[in-house]
């Protein structure tokens, strides 16, 4: 030992010193930690292993609880690992399992250390290295250490063996080929009578069975035995998990198992086991009426229990049953609905799910009404939870459960007015989606949109902006159903729209455009009764064309629905309003807003002449112009009146790529070209104009006007608006100051007492939850447009399976003898060889004798075991025995020593493969 290292070790802080120092915090935590890290970096380089290990331990502490990177110490940890002392090893293993991951560079060096410790005589060292392996195993480690783990699987030290069993799961996961080596020993351990080993093995199988239950069907008899015999709750729970996976695959097995499970459910006092039984029954045995009834009885006990845990689990179990036996939920509806007002948010959400599960097309209206009322009174988080689940339930499968779309649309409107509502985006989507899909609901949709748009208070709520944008779109697209389009114009151009973000502003302007065109069209082109002289003159020439249009249903609708007369005078006012409202927006910094405002104003400019003329005196010259303007109106109207339909998600893929277009072309150059062009920030109030030189003068004029004029203008507009829609404004006590803090759309209802509330709810829903009543639909369900592919999302590629497949494939190879490694020629002579039990017995001995030759010591004991098993099972029915024996034989023949095994397996395959028909065998019959 060298001097400095000694001094290091003499003065070294121990872990305790470190923790004490950290807690005293004389110099602040961060400073102290960085100082300590500095020391550690020095100490860890020491040649003295004690010093090194202490440093490593300290580093573990800092890494674990203060999250400091310890990857620099990876190699040092390996050095400590090589120490002969147990205490050092322990620290090193701890550090390694804490910090190593698949990409740690020194991972390659650890294999030999692990191998050495796995074969150590000290059981604790073996256990340490097993533990470590379970954490850090990668493909290489798993492959290289498979033989050692295999040996440990039959170690006579129970302590080591049970750990090896647990670790084998990780090895299988990483390196599926190890199944061929280890699987049989694993299965042997199933017959162990030591409860600890058994619990470990069953744990492994329950994890394995989760991934691919079918492969483990042949082991069902063993599991059954464990289920019946087990005294330990831990083991029973795991076995139940396995059966929950296996039973749905094999009805005969389910028949056999259901009775013991019910017994267990009746007998057990442990809640955890009881719950597992209940869950197993409701998930996998739902067709066994009596078992389900028993489980439901237990669930009810859970539900009324004081313990919130049991209540939660009870609700959870109910929600599993709900998918198959809805009556169970209806039976317990009081409890479920009362839980909606439970103090625990998790319980509330669980019960909400249940309530939503009860929704059907008969009661959706009642339940939604109750829930929306409830959402009004609950806290924001849960309120949105409720709204979200109503939205998703109702829109499921293209609005499957909605019959009365008028009702649903008004419900959407109502929901968006709930003060805490943050589901704007979803409501927006549904508004538009319904508009596109359901033709018959459009008039109602327009009415709802009108109510939303016209209320100036809603504009102040940023969560509602998305809803408003949908409403604006609806109003523009389906304006022909509106009773009074002029009202829409005013709503869309009201002064407070300045509160909207630019993207939605743009939608407003575009919708205003559509509405305007519609108004003009009805006024001039169709020559409504009050249209001006010049328009009526031109009307003649277009008459034939509008007849053609009349074929279009939308236009036909439009004629019937518009009741408010549109006079020339109102058009003139309208044009003025547009100019007034939009001219400030010409200077907007958002491209979209500016562009659209410009479009609309340009259009107004074109039209204005005619509108003005037609109201005034008649001249030949203007008549000619009027004709032109009418032509323009017609053109634009035609462009807008084309109906939009839903688009399939996969539509894009169906568009053929035109020749000469390379989609994969690298657009990297584009970035360098566009890099120096800065995008104008859309939502900040910027200083300069991003526009071209020549426009600057006119623009800056506008800017000045805007700056000075905007406030007066908007106040005057606002005053006017207020005059008209007085009922939506507060009584103006505070003069006419424009304040942005409008009252929320809906004053939150007074927070009533929760319990009263709950009882109300129970009362309210009591009748609505019973689906007995035949609904008396006043009208038939409207047609909902669906696409051919039913809007399915393209099925996600199964990526996960590939790896599992190799694992379960390996397992299947061993348990069934996989068919695909079979040469087809040899399959032909199979069936006759396995039909008779006698022949088979003969073959078994044949196989075993072969084994005796190959792997000497091992198999003799195995054979003895086999015989004893054979005796045990003699009393069972013959075919069951046959199965088991076949199983046994296959396992045996395929899992021996890794290297020799492969070639041998090939040779034996023809012998050991059972006839294809018995792949799903008779279990336990």
């Amino acid at each position: 030992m060298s001097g400095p290292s000694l001094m290091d070790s003499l003065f070294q802080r121990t872990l305790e010193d470190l923790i004490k120092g950290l807690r005293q915090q004389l110099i602040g935590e961060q400073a102290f930690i960085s100082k300590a890290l500095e020391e550690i970096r020095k100490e860890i380089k020491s040649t003295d292993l004690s010093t090194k290990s202490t440093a490593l331990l300290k580093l573990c502490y800092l890494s674990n609880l203060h999250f400091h990177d310890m990857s620099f110490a990876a190699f040092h940890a390996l050095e400590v690992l090589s120490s002969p002392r147990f205490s050092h090893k322990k620290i090193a293993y701890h550090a390694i399992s804490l910090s190593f991951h698949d990409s740690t560079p020194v991972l390659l060096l650890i294999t030999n250390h692990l191998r050495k410790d796995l074969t150590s005589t000290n059981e604790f060292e073996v256990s340490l290295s097993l533990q470590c392996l379970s954490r850090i195993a990668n493909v290489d480690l798993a492959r290289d250490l498979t033989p050692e783990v295999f040996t440990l699987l039959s170690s006579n030290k129970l302590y080591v063996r049970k750990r090896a069993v647990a670790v084998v799961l990780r090895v299988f996961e990483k390196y599926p080929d190890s199944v061929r080596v280890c699987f049989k020993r694993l299965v042997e351990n199933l017959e162990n009578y030591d409860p600890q080993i058994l619990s470990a093995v069953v744990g492994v199988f329950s994890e394995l069975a989760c991934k691919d239950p079918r492969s483990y069907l042949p082991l069902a008899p063993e599991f059954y035995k464990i289920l019946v015999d087990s005294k330990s709750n831990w083991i029973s729970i795991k076995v139940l998990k396995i059966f929950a996976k296996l039973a749905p695959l094999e009805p005969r097995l389910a028949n056999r198992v259901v009775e013991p499970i019910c017994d267990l459910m009746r007998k057990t006092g442990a809640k955890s086991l009881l719950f597992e039984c209940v869950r197993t029954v409701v998930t996998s045995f739902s067709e066994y009426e009596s078992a389900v009834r028993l489980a439901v009885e237990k669930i009810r006990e859970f539900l009324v229990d004081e313990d919130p845990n049991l209540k939660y689990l009870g609700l959870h179990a109910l929600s599993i049953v709900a998918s198959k036996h809805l009556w169970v939920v209806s039976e317990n509806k009081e409890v479920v609905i009362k839980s909606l007002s439970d103090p625990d948010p998790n319980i509330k959400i669980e019960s909400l799910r249940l309530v939503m599960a009860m929704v059907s097309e008969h009661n959706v209206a009642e339940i939604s009404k109750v829930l929306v009322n409830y959402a009004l009174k609950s806290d924001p988080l849960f309120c949105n939870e409720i709204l979200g689940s109503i939205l998703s339930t109702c829109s499921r499968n293209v609005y499957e459960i909605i019959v009365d779309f008028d009702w649903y649309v008004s419900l959407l409107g109502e929901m968006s007015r709930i003060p805490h509502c943050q589901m704007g985006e979803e409501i927006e989507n549904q508004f538009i989606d319904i508009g596109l899909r359901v033709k018959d609901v459009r008039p109602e949709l327009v009415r709802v949109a009108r109510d939303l748009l016209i209320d100036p208070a809603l504009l102040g709520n940023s969560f509602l902006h998305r809803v408003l944008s949908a409403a604006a779109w609806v109003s523009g697209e389906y304006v022909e159903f509106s009773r009074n389009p002029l009202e829409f114009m005013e709503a869309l151009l009201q002064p407070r729209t300045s509160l909207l973000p630019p993207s939605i502003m743009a939608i407003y302007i575009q919708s205003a455009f559509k509405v305007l065109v519609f108004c003009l069209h009805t006024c001039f082109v169709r020559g409504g009764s009050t249209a001006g002289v010049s328009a009526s003159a031109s009307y003649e020439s277009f008459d034939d064309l509008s007849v053609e249009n009349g074929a279009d249903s939308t236009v036909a609708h439009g004629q019937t629905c518009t009741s408010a007369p549109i006079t020339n005078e109102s058009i003139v006012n309208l044009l003025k309003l547009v100019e007034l409202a939009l001219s400030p927006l010409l200077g907007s910094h958002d491209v979209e807003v500016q562009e659209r405002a410009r479009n609309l104003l340009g259009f107004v400019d074109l039209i204005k002449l005619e509108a003005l003329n037609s109201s005034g005196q008649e001249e030949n010259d203007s008549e000619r112009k009027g004709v032109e303007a009418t032509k323009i109106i017609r053109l634009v109207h035609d462009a807008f009146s084309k109906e939009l339909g839903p688009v399939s998600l996969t539509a894009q893929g169906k568009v053929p790529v035109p020749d000469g277009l390379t989609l994969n072309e690298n657009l990297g150059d584009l970035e360098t070209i566009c890099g120096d062009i800065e995008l104008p920030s859309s939502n900040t109030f910027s200083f300069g104009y991003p526009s071209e030189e020549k426009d600057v003068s006119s623009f800056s004029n506008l800017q000045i006007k805007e700056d000075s004029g905007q406030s007066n203008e908007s106040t005057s507009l606002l005053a006017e608006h207020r005059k008209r829609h007085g009922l939506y404004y507060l009584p103006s006590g505070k003069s006419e100051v424009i304040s942005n803090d409008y009252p929320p759309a809906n004053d939150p209802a007074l927070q009533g007492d929760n319990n009263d509330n709950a009882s109300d709810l129970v009362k309210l829903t009591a009748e609505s939850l019973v689906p007995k009543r035949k609904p008396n639909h006043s009208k038939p369900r409207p047609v909902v447009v669906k696409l051919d592919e039913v809007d399915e999302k393209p099925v996600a590629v199964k990526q996960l399976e590939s790896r599992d497949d190799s694992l379960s494939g390996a397992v299947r190879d061993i348990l069934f003898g996989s068919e695909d490694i079979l040469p087809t020629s040899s399959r032909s002579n199979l069936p006759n060889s396995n039909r008779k039990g006698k022949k088979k017995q003969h073959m078994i001995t044949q196989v075993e004798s072969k084994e005796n030759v190959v792997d000497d010591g091992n198999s003799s004991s195995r054979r003895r075991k086999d015989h004893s098993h054979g005796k045990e099972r003699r009393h069972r029915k013959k075919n069951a025995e046959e199965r088991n024996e076949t199983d046994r034989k296959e396992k045996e023949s395929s899992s021996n020593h890794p290297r020799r095994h492969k070639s041998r397996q090939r040779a034996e395959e023809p012998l050991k493969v059972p006839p294809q028909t018995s792949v799903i065998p008779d279990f336990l019959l």
Partner: protein
Amino acid sequence: MIHFVLLISRQGKVRLTKWYSAYSQKERTKVIRELSGLILTRGPKLCNFVEWRGLRVVYKRYASLYFCMCIDEDDNELEILEIIHHYVEVLDRYFGSVCELDLIYNFHKAYFILDELLIAGELQEPSKRTVARLVAAQDSLVETAKEQTSSITNIIAQAANFTIKMLHKGYGPWGSNALHLESLLLVDVCTRLVDQH
């Protein structure tokens, strides 16, 4: 299976973390931040389960410590509660009415005990007595190993350490300044002795 085990104090300080599934260091901090926000804010008398990223976290509070375990959706929550209780009982038996400070100062011991209990995310040892016995056996292994290999060096080092500490504090067992010199000498002797070994 259990994906990870966390011990968090009521103030949000992490006392123990054990990961059975792969999480990078970054994810770990994020997980802990998320979960302590989720769990510490829950009032008493609520249920002990939290849904989180498609998994389920079972937690239980003992005095000022929250014991959390994260499991798969279809694992048995009540069983995990039992495992947590089991762990607490084992700790209690080992430290003799365990408190948070025990876990702070013996953080590695808490790990070693957990390692006896769980392996690869599965319960391994349901018997409290066996766990206690195994941990004790390993502790004694550590102790004897220490004594065997480095008894002399250790004694000398301890003596030197002691002397130096005295020197640092400014008062010696000898009570006078004159003896400072002597103790310095002792350090020197010790150093040389250790070198020889």
